[in-house]
């Protein structure tokens, strides 16, 4: 087990190294001088030089890279050009907002998806299965931001029962928090529930076709007991991997959904930085999200190996 964890950890660290190289390299993608798009035409050469120094572009590339690694290893992602504060503090301040949104969407999406997937698998190729499969595919084909806009139109503009956007922190006002988070979390959950349902159905069908299920059937157990006591625990192991994939989907999804509902989370911070070319925030934000993603997937893989010892050999 320790052997598996250390191998998996080494592989993650290599990926993390490449991730940091890619984020460092983003600024190099800019055609021409990156400071030119940040400053207007009237800026003096001194201003340009100062900005270049602030971005570290006045130094040689290896030196830039050494400084960048020196900083990020200490958890310092640099200073935002436009927000006039450190990138790390800006990200950490907004993280709870994004986590609460993604967390609720994750819980709702997993519960609904697993339930729908079990119903579909129990009724394989009959109408409940077809309804679940059809709706899942439809849900996976809807653009998330468009669904958000449509929900805003119906629940905020037509019926006026929920706000069109904005965010109230949980500690300030629990009811207000729930009202502001309801539509964005629903949108995110709806877009991802189909994927969970399809994966659960596939995992359940795999398990339900195995010999021990037939044995349980033969000794006269009820259908519900077979599925919930013997089938589900075994199907949950492959469903665990869904968590890892979903983490990536939800982090990307919140970026767009925060934009639709004007929620001050990590995604909105990064999109704002991208549109205004605030490079330290773009680089820091991308690195931050990638680290979260890699961490979640490392955890999922370790949990998987704990639950299913065969995985440790791979």
């Amino acid at each position, binding site marked *: 087990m320790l052997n598996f964890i250390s191998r998996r950890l080494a592989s993650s660290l290599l990926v993390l190294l490449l991730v940091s190289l890619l984020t460092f390299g*983003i600024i190099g993608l800019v055609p021409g001088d990156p400071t030119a798009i940040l400053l207007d035409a009237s800026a003096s050469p001194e201003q340009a030089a100062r900005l270049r120094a602030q971005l570290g572009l006045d130094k040689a590339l290896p030196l830039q890279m050494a400084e960048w690694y020196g900083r990020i290893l200490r958890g310092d992602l640099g200073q935002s050009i436009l927000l006039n504060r450190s990138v790390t503090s800006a990200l950490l301040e907004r993280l709870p907002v994004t986590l609460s949104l993604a967390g609720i969407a994750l819980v709702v999406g997993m519960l609904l998806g697993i339930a729908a997937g079990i119903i579909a698998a129990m009724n394989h190729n009959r109408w409940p299965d077809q309804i679940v499969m059809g709706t899942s595919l439809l849900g996976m084909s809807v653009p998330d931001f468009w669904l958000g806009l449509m929900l805003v139109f119906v629940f905020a503009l037509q019926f006026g029962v929920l706000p069109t956007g904005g965010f109230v922190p949980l500690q300030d006002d629990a009811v207000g928090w729930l009202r502001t988070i309801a539509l964005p979390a629903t949108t995110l959950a709806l877009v991802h529930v189909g994927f969970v349902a399809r994966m659960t159905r596939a995992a359940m*069908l795999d398990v339900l076709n195995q010999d021990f299920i037939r044995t349980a059937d033969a000794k006269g157990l009820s259908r519900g007991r077979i599925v919930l006591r013997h089938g589900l625990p075994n199907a949950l192991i492959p469903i665990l991997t869904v968590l890892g994939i979903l983490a990536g989907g939800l982090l990307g999804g919140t970026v767009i959904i925060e934009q639709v509902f004007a929620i001050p989370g990590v995604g909105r911070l990064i999109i704002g930085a991208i549109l205004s070319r605030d490079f330290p925030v773009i680089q820091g934000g991308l690195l931050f999200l990638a680290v979260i993603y890699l961490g979640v997937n490392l955890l999922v893989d370790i949990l998987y190996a704990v639950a299913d010892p065969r995985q440790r050999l791979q």
Partner: protein
Amino acid sequence: MSANATARAPGAGPTRGPAGAALRRLMANRSFMIGGCLVLAIVLAAIFAEWLTPFDPLRSNVRARLQEPSSRHWFGTDHFGRDIFSRVVFGARISLTIGLLVVIATGAFGTLIGALAGYFYRVDNLLMRLMDALMAFPAILLAITVSAVLGASVPNVVIALSVATTPHTARIVRGSVLMVRGLEYVEAARALGAGEMRILFRHVLANAMGPLIVRLTYVFAIAILAEAALSFVGVGPPPPAPSFGSIIAQGRDFMVDAPWICLFPGLAIIVAVLGLNLLGDGLRDVLDPRMKT
């Protein structure tokens, strides 16, 4: 399936061989046929946009601002008095073109990287860890960043989306190459003196195409969704040419008075993406039996 086809012995008839058999099974697959019809409808609309649309998608008409759907303007008009139906039909042209270009680029780079990684052990670890690194970023955020940094234009949007869709595709190609490379006929080709490159591209890849074709169908769907998201954020293909996403983005400010501006391009995206997803599911059932549930 028609009685005609079932009466025929397997492998016989005008469409012989494995390709013919796959084609017959596709024709009998409900997902494939429904998806195919949806996609065909959108593709035909995009090709024959000039003949289908009663108005110029770019021409504004101040007297016809924000009109609701009617017999004259089927999908209503926007704040410039432009006909939404015409814009959606022409939008299909841009969205599908971008999707197709992303499929071509992803297919080329995904195949190249996946094939090299799967066939040559020495580059495998590095290439795949690089793909893992790209996949560690949320795909949509990666595409937005690349498009914004390069500058929003159609080619840059294609590059941005391809960067986001290639890693997973490469991983799939690598997987099927790994499976095929150990088969006996590959050894036979080597025994006959075929070069490594010839074996890889002529013999191994030809038999690893199934999962790639399935994946590229989904990539097409992903590209249409992602292009719309890029436009919504403001880093998509530049105006005035409409894409599905840019029509929605422009209609957002008029949600109260004119919800139809956003409604119809969204429905068009759903039809196109649902069609491609159904097509992909059908192709997977036939071409990639391992994945079948």
